[in-house]
């Protein structure tokens, strides 16, 4: 990953697309300026926290926390509407988590194997339509609520496996819980989440939510969340 923490006079300005001469208006220029300023502020406020969090949770790399943080901030900056994100810091951390998880061998192996079997074309995940974004937001909200119903132990094991990227053997070594217990707790946790997700889907009459094809799976989440 490119380390590019060099001093440049205008932060992010080089990355903001210039409007065409015909479409340039005072409004868009103001919007652009506000966006740049917002991201600049976010960067100054949260850079250190994001690096520290990544270092504490994932170690010194590779990938190095600073590289991951930079990539996460870059992706955030390249979004069309970053100012509309309710909690930008949390969003950036989610991007950083998923960048880090993509470097963990056994997770890559599992993901590649599964996407191959489900015949998901990962190159098409960038083509989002509003309906699919809405669909993913609904699912995120449902799963968020569902995780709150898990016991502390279930949530800890689930997050260690999914977010920390630990193998079950690593979880066992860290916690002292047996492999069988870890599998059992994980199974229960997933069954709770799946049941709530299914209930939510069945309650929703929107046809788009009922579309559960493999192709929609590939597009259901923004690329930043794929891992």
């Amino acid at each position, binding site marked *: 990953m*490119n380390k590019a923490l060099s001093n440049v*006079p205008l932060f*992010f300005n080089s990355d903001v697309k210039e409007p065409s001469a015909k479409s340039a208006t005072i409004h868009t220029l103001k919007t652009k300026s506000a966006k740049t300023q917002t991201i600049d502020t976010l960067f100054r406020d949260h850079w250190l926290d994001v690096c520290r969090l990544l270092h504490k*949770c994932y170690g010194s790399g590779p990938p190095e926390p600073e590289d991951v943080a930079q990539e996460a901030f870059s992706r955030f900056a390249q979004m069309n509407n970053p100012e509309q994100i309710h909690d930008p810091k949390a969003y950036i951390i989610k991007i950083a988590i998923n960048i880090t998880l993509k470097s963990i061998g056994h997770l890559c192996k599992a993901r590649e194997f599964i996407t191959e079997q489900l015949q998901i074309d990962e190159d098409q995940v960038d083509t989002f339509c509003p309906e699919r974004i809405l669909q*993913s937001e609904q699912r995120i909200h449902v*799963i968020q609520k569902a995780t709150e119903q898990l016991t502390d132990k279930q949530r800890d094991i689930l997050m260690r496996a*999914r977010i920390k990227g630990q193998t*079950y053997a690593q979880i066992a070594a860290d916690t002292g819980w047996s492999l069988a217990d870890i599998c059992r707790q994980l199974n229960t946790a997933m069954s709770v989440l799946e049941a709530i997700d299914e209930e939510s889907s069945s309650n929703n009459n929107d046809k788009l939510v009922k579309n559960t094809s493999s192709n929609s799976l590939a597009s259901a989440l923004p690329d930043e*969340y794929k891992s």
Partner: protein
Amino acid sequence: MTDQHNENQANTVKDQAREWLIYLYSGETTQKKRDEFVIWVNKNDVNRQAFSQSYKVWQTIGATDSSVEWLAQYAIRKPASLPTKKSKSILTKSALWLSGIAASALFLVVNNSFQAPKTMKVTASEIVFTSPIGENKTVTLSDGTAVTLAGNSSILVDINQHERRISLRKGSAYFDVTHDSERVFSVSAQHTEVRVRGTAFEVEYSTDNELKISVQRGLVDVADLPEYGSKDEKVVQLHPNQQLRADIHGAFVNGVTNFDPETEFSWLNSLLIYDNIPLKNVIVDINRYVTKPIIVSDESINHLPITASFTFDQIDSVLTGLVAAYPIKLTEEVNRTVITKINDKPY
């Protein structure tokens, strides 16, 4: 009674799907079990659908605020530790009387490495090149390096004034690297990195998630990238006509072997040549050049030795020829072609 039966059956399938998902992310999978999963998930749409649902939920967990909250709590719970890199491991071996100095030095390192920079340069230097299914594609990078992508392959290119970094995202790529003594040319995939300065070589995703590196000219260093920086990397140097395989974790498989360059690089001339190569390897290559993917659903024929030579245009007739020559059959489905074994023909 029937409704009850159907409901029980659906729950059983969901349970199986969840168990498979949990198994696949365990970090301790075997080829045998993965093959069993392939058969299970391809058995019918109900299984596939159930597994897709479990996988959706699994993916979505990473997008929740719960994940960030948990990570923040984990960071608080975890005992504080200073960042260490492999090159600094000597500090841990320092004599006791030096510990005070070492601690001071580390404090400075931490302070510097986590110093919030005043500005951040967002580079747009990363470019993705992707080849279509069915044909090779050759591109010339900004440093003059020529890259030939096999069908359905993709690389991420990041070339700047300090380094030349390529990431193989899928498929296979052949690199004819322009010499540059100032900038190492590196190709990474999974947990393996290939480093050169000026040479010609191929990196390919092979069967069983293995990575295959084949050198045609010059010297190539192949390194396994350690996870979390927890161990020193291992580097193997390859000479022309030497080949090395690495598994998904970067561990080298079976050591360095020699290969026939005419066979190995035949795909550069739109030709596929095999001499006693397992069927599953042949299918991996063929799938880069056919729009409808082919899968082998029977493990017992995965290693069927294939000897053949054909162009990309002849793949259909080759498949027909394989059916005539071997105890296998092709089943055309909507989205794929399935190869299965015919049980009543010994081979």
